[in-house]
């Protein structure tokens, strides 16, 4: 599996660390909304198909990346820096991919 880091170019997956599901939205630390925290910690969409996820290029530039990867074929359709697309609108967009 190759991941094309927007900064470093195509690199072997061994340089990257999986940081998990990218769909989750961390509630405001001050929030006491129990359901939101519960969903953030435990609930997963776990799709068979395109999955929005976070990887760190830990063996390279160390940037955190938002990757859309197909969980059936391991095909990667987009990679972007997490920083710069913080908005939940951007996240939703990745989620909405068929």
């Amino acid at each position, binding site marked *: *599996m190759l991941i094309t880091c927007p900064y470093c170019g195509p690199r*072997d*997956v*061994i340089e990257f660390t*999986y940081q*998990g*599901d990218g769909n989750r939205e961390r509630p405001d630390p001050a929030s006491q909304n129990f359901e939101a925290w*519960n*969903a953030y*910690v*435990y*609930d*997963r*969409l*776990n*799709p*068979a198909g395109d*999955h929005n*996820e976070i990887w760190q290029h830990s063996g390279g530039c160390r940037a955190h990346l938002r990757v859309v*990867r197909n*969980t*059936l*074929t*391991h095909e990667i359709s987009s990679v972007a820096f997490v920083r710069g697309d913080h908005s939940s609108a951007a996240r939703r967009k990745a989620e909405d991919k068929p």
Partner: protein
Amino acid sequence: MAEYSALSLLANAFKGNKDWKPAWRKPDPKASYDVIIIGGGGHGLATAYYLAKEHGITNVAVLEKGWLGSGNVGRNTTAVRSNYLLPANTRFYEHSMKLWENLSHELNYNVMFSQRGCLNLAHTPAQFDDYARRGNAMRHLGVDAELMTPAEIKRLIPALDISSDARFPVVGGLMQRRAGTARHDAVAWGYARGADRRGVDIVENCEVTGFLRDGDRVTGVTTSRGDIRAKKVAVAVAGSTGRVMQLAGVETMPIESHVLQAFVTESLKPFIDTVVTFGMGHFYMSQSDKGGLVYGGDIDGYNSYAQRGNLPIVDEVMSEMLALFPGLARVRMLRSWGGVCDMSMDGSPIITMGPLPGMYLNCGWCYGGFKATPASGWCFAWTIAKDQPHDFNAPFTLDRFHRGLVIDDKGQGANPRLH
């Protein structure tokens, strides 16, 4: 007369082995059943068997999208043990162990259960203390556990380097002698035959594509072979849990699907007669009855429904194997394969009623559910038949996450990829 006995073997041998019956029929699905079980893996088949045998519920169908044993039950590395730390786990897995100890007899089917022991190696004093704690917890609940010194370990596994120059010196180990291995395919086939002979329909090549509903209540399934109604629908689909639950409109689960790989070498002369696990990484190995070394390590570690793995883990597992047994460097690897595991958020399974009325759910086995097969089927059958859990599976609910009652043996939740 038992179907398989010395006498039946002899009689059939003289008749050219032409009179053996198929181990299970190939019925077409009926229009309705009392219970439908989705998933013809070890757990689904064991559930059907115990529903029929323990509860007299025989109007049951097991629906399998592929062929029996095509899922994880035929892909695992066959290790069976009950050496857990937390009481809920220990009780459940020890119930399983007791069922294993009588399984070949019970099913009249040789599942080749071999109590060759399972040894966890410790490489630091702290790790050894941790194993002592776990061993004590096990013995409290009546499960066998034994601490071993390096010298004892050397006698058991001569190929292991226990000198202080070893890459990871061995400080000691925790041994469960009653643990071991079983022939995984035979477990599926034995349960299948046992269920079939009691009237259960095992329907292969029948994929569940959706659920029939009456309001909230599940009343059956749609399949690639037509609609089938049922009073109760049980889901036991291991790595496909996320997908199948989405068909029922349950969008999120405390589960991620990850791939786990396994490996086997060419056949060797007897090399190791126990299951051994490496405490410095994640590696375990045993030797099959054919002589191949069977081994594995970590999951690939990111969501995957592909029943194949990627190279970095192959590399990692091989290097761990060589750290323990440098002498195996020139042994050839024969095969590797992957299976999809439903990794739960606390590393423990879910065996429960619901989450919808009329539905029953068995999932979250992570990479360790083969050893659970008998108890999983036994408890799930109990839950389906009586509409309440048995004491053994009462803690393994779906809403335990929500209620803060996680069963986290490894202390690594809520990170499914770390279990």
